[in-house]
């Protein structure tokens, strides 16, 4: 689906030769300045070494694979070479198709092709060709690659292309060659029955290959966040099979060596050595682990600090500058300071509320109203809120009445702090607004003063609530607003 390597080079990775598995080499027209070798995560038989090499060298995969197979017969050098590549070369990262870092590539007909040349929809990775051989191939690849078989629908979509079937043939041929190679190898092994260690060694080799393959897979999934929910069991199965094979191989090896009678003691000894190694390296490993953790914590802290610094810079420092410039206007300075204090408090102690854009609960709405009154009238308003509830029409009316009461308290309350207490108790919402001013008797208020009568008492009545204005015991005035909430939420 995608070209391996972080610096995809269309010219080299997409030779435009005939799309056949056994195609002749089609070297890229322009040599790239710099290329890195990666193993290909896709279209691999084992570790993606051959494929990665092929892409790197601009050769057909089949050639590389054939070279490995041929080298295998040269005293198994091919295997060693392959293993070395597998071990050393990292699996391809920075997949362009998903990373969006460059042109998108798809694996099509044995070549990497820019996605736009084949249409918006990338072709499926493998072509599940109906027929026994196709299924056998799928099975084989599935076993070693751990990738799901291409869905039927996808394969149906591509049925039209004759090139794909030819390419399928090519891949099949490669696989068959591999099978033949293995057969030949088995023959050789049978002949070499004088070397009895071969079978255990083979088992160990296959087991190790399985485990390594799985490690590659999980790494791959981690990088790209592929959720392997359904795959996980398969992964465990493969790792388990690999471990089992290795164990069987080792035990077989020991038995063949004539130490079969002492397998138990050998295992014991191995365990002892393992334990010793653990004891010796444990502290270092633990230390490293802790260092990693500490480093991570420090990094997170630094990030947090940076965020706080940014916030303070944006808000507090800015306000302080404004305050310095306007130092001759105490009202404005107070307003700025209060507004900033409020914002900072909200940010420090109620980050969730600060993140919310629109206040839709009583407490948030009250906070807004209080802020507004403080700013407009330059009088501190102390708000205490017990409980909370969502806003509805009736509560909204109550908030308007409360606002009016606060404005009155700020205007006539003698400049002292206004105290607002709101409580939600079941369905009842009560708000108390109190000032410490000279106080007044509602009875003596002249009839033409509509503020208290209409905006507070009248409004509450209209919405089915009650409002009381009364002098506080030791001076000042208190307005009490009580409202039943509307419908249940």
């Amino acid at each position, binding site marked *: 689906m995608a070209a391996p390597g972080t610096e995809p080079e269309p010219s080299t990775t997409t030779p435009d030769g005939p799309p056949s598995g056994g195609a002749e080499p089609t070297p890229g027209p322009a040599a790239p300045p710099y290329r890195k070798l990666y193993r290909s995560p896709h279209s691999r038989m084992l570790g993606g070494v051959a494929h990665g090499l092929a892409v790197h060298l601009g050769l057909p995969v089949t050639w590389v694979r054939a070279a490995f197979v041929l080298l295998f017969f040269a005293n198994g050098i091919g295997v060693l070479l392959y293993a070395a590549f597998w071990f050393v070369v990292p699996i391809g990262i920075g997949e362009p198709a998903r990373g969006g870092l460059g042109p998108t590539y798809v694996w099509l007909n044995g070549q990497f092709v820019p996605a736009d040349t084949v249409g918006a929809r990338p072709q499926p990775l493998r072509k599940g060709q109906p027929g026994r051989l196709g299924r056998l191939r799928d099975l084989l690849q599935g076993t070693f690659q751990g990738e799901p078989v291409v869905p039927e629908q996808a394969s149906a979509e591509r049925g039209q292309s004759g090139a794909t079937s030819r390419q399928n043939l090519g891949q099949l041929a490669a696989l068959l060659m591999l099978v033949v190679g293995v057969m030949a190898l088995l023959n050789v092994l049978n002949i070499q029955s004088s070397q009895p260690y071969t079978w255990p060694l083979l088992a160990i080799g296959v087991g190790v290959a399985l485990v390594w393959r799985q490690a590659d897979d999980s790494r791959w999934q981690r990088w790209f966040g592929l959720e392997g929910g359904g795959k996980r069991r398969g992964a465990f199965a493969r790792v388990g099979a690999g471990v089992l094979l290795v164990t069987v191989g080792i035990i077989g090896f020991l038995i063949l060596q004539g130490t079969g009678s002492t397998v138990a003691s050998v295992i014991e000894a191995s365990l002892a050595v393992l334990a010793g190694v653990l004891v010796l390296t444990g502290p270092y490993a633990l230390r490293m682990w802790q260092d990693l953790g500490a480093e991570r914590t420090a990094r997170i802290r630094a990030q947090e600090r940076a965020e706080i610094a940014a916030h303070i810079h944006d808000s507090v420092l800015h306000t302080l500058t404004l305050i310095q410039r306007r130092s001759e206007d105490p009202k404005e300075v107070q307003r700025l300071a209060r507004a900033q204090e409020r914002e900072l408090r909200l940010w420090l*102690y109620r980050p969730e509320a600060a993140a919310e854009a629109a206040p839709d609960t009583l407490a948030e709405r009250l906070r807004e109203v209080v802020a507004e009154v403080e700013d407009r009238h330059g009088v501190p308003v102390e708000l205490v809120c017990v409980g909370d509830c969502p806003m509805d029409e009736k509560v909204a009316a109550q908030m308007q009445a409360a606002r009016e009461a606060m404005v009155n308290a700020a205007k006539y309350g003698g400049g002292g702090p206004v105290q607002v207490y709101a409580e939600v108790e079941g369905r009842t919402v009560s708000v108390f607004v*109190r000032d410490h001013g000279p106080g007044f008797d509602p009875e003596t208020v002249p009839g033409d003063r509509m503020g208290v009568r209409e905006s507070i008492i009248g409004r509450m009545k209209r919405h089915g609530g009650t409002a009381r204005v009364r002098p506080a015991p030791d001076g000042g005035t208190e307005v009490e607003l009580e409202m039943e909430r509307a419908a249940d939420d």
Partner: protein
Amino acid sequence: MTEAVSTGAGADGPVRVARVVLVDDHRMFRTGVRAEIGRTETTGIDVVGEADDVESAVKVVAETRPDVVLLDVHLPGGGGVEVLRRSAAVMGEPGGVKFLALSVSDAAEDVIGVIRGGARGYVTKTITGADLVNAVFRIADGDAVFSPRLAGFVLDAFAATDTPPVDEDLDRLTQREREVLRLIARGYAYKEIAKQLFISVKTVESHVSAVLRKLQLSNRHELTRWATARRLI
């Protein structure tokens, strides 16, 4: 809230002086508070020590044995709670050191944390000098001091919930205690509460002390966390 400074060195009455230690990591704030309440001849408060972190606070408190410690909630070295924990010895004894939390913090967990740690009250830093002097003498006399905000926190924390109380006596507020707290939250001074409820100031004080005791001893699990969560609906 607007009561005049009545305690302290009055013209007649016995001259009382409360020895106070200021614990706050902001020197400017300590200086301000000292200037505001530290004039012993008028306020009756003698600032006998200052500290700016947990370590020095514990040391100063142990050395000077003041009547009242004005304790900031946020302090380097573990905060006010840590000071309280490490001063348990001087707090426990009869006539021992009493702590009054003084904070700008808006967070319920900070405030209720120090109260549960053993502080006898909590006031905000916006408090006036006269009110602070009053609060200090109230604390020195063994009473509890609730600011409107603390009363709100406590009402919230003890609000009726689905969780059954572990200890009925401690985990619930009586109707009267609830009323008193509500009036405090509404901005009433003790004297006003007494008038409103037709009880004596002493009774108000005993109600407040009972609430404080419940708050400090309550078995309610995760009281603080829970109260905080409730405020964050």
